[in-house]
């Protein structure tokens, strides 16, 4: 059963009581909240996601037990807030209530990046087409999510917008398709680029500026259990008025840059080194500069596949 099968009232009821057991890629999150805007955004953006249907069972297994709650202090009367609870504890400071859904998304990212240490986790988007996946590692502000959102709106499969999960045993990429986080001008750019795409209400004045989330394509969610092999590592950089260009980067330098962009490379020790060696060794690596999304997508669609290392 998918989230879409639940009428909003039923979804709110589950979230209020035992919780919603939501599967995203390899993880099941048990989410509880009484905040109605969070329920509405889950209904909108997670419509195609499968539920682990344990609604009546309070003790079924979940990887992450999450609550988005409202602090019961005096502030709730004049400046209401939302707080993220993980196993009943709050790892972050509360945020304004208006930011409750972004807080859930950031909290879910934290759950994975802080706990899933049986995988190599890279701060990167991953998209795939015809069996070939591209890893897009980049710091915030590089245009990674904008490019990723445009590509998945033009037929590429979304594996992740934020957390590339690399299996230690074989270096394959585990999908974790979740709503794509867009910031500031990127929100309107993507609305113009993909008018049929579904977006959450933009929330302003967050730590990242104005943020909105884009619903991932239904097909990407349906294929969330299909791992993919990496063929390219591409470091994207948006630069106003820049000509679209792709420049080779050596695999050794790519290795160092990915290690810098990884959440747990150091923690994994030799296994992290071996996994990253295998991953980089199987990829063609590039720096990519762009300013025009149509040109960027056309270039990705023409990436050669005949000289990818085995």
């Amino acid at each position, binding site marked *: 059963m998918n989230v879409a099968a639940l009428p909003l009232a039923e979804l709110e009821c589950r979230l209020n009581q035992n919780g919603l057991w939501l599967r995203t890629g390899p993880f099941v999150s048990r989410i509880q909240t009484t905040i109605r805007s969070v329920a509405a955004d889950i209904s909108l953006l997670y419509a195609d996601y499968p539920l682990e249907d344990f609604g009546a069972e309070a003790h079924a297994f979940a990887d992450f037990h999450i609550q988005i709650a409202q602090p019961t202090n005096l502030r709730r009367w004049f400046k209401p807030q939302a707080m993220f609870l993980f196993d009943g504890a709050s790892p972050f400071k509360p945020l304004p209530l208006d930011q409750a859904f972004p807080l859930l998304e950031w909290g879910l990212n934290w759950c994975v990046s802080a706990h899933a240490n049986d995988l190599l986790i890279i701060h990167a988007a991953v998209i795939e087409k015809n069996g070939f996946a591209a890893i897009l590692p980049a710091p915030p502000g590089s245009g990674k999510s904008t490019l990723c959102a445009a590509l998945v709106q033009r037929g590429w499969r979304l594996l992740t917008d934020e957390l590339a999960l690399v299996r230690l045993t074989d270096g394959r990429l585990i999908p974790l398709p979740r709503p794509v986080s867009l910031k500031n001008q990127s929100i309107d750019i993507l609305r113009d680029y993909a008018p049929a795409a579904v977006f959450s209400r933009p929330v302003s004045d967050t730590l990242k500026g104005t943020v909105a989330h884009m619903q991932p394509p239904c097909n990407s969610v349906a294929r969330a259990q299909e791992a993919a092999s990496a063929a390219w590592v591409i470091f994207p950089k948006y630069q106003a008025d820049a000509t679209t260009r792709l420049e080779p980067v*050596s695999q*050794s330098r790519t290795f160092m840059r990915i290690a810098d962009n990884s959440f747990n490379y150091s923690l994994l020790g030799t296994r992290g080194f071996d996994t990253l*060696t295998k991953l980089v060794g199987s990829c063609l690596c590039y720096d990519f500069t762009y300013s025009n999304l149509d040109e960027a997508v056309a270039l990705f669609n023409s990436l050669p596949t005949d000289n990818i290392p085995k």
Partner: protein
Amino acid sequence: MNFNPTSSQAFMLSGSFMPMLEAHREWRIADSLHFSCWGDEYVVYHALSGDTHLIGKAAAHILMALQQAVTDTQSLSRSLAAMMGVRSSTEFMLEMHRILSDLNKLSLIEHR
């Protein structure tokens, strides 16, 4: 021992301009190094420190040689010069000392 390139007494007379004591000083490689190689660049992971380093062909050659056996500076120099197809000039020796010093600072090699 500090290397002072302006002190002629510190050099051997064989034409290699290597500090005499340094020439026969032996080096050994740190435990638990792992290598990945792409072209002329190598990535080295030092499992004991958890550090990862990007190194060039010459430094990698030295580390590989030291993986085979404890070796002194002079032998390492000869081996590296042969691999690179160059004569052991003053400039070459200065570069050799720089690489050994860098590898030592990174705790990838140490004096025996």
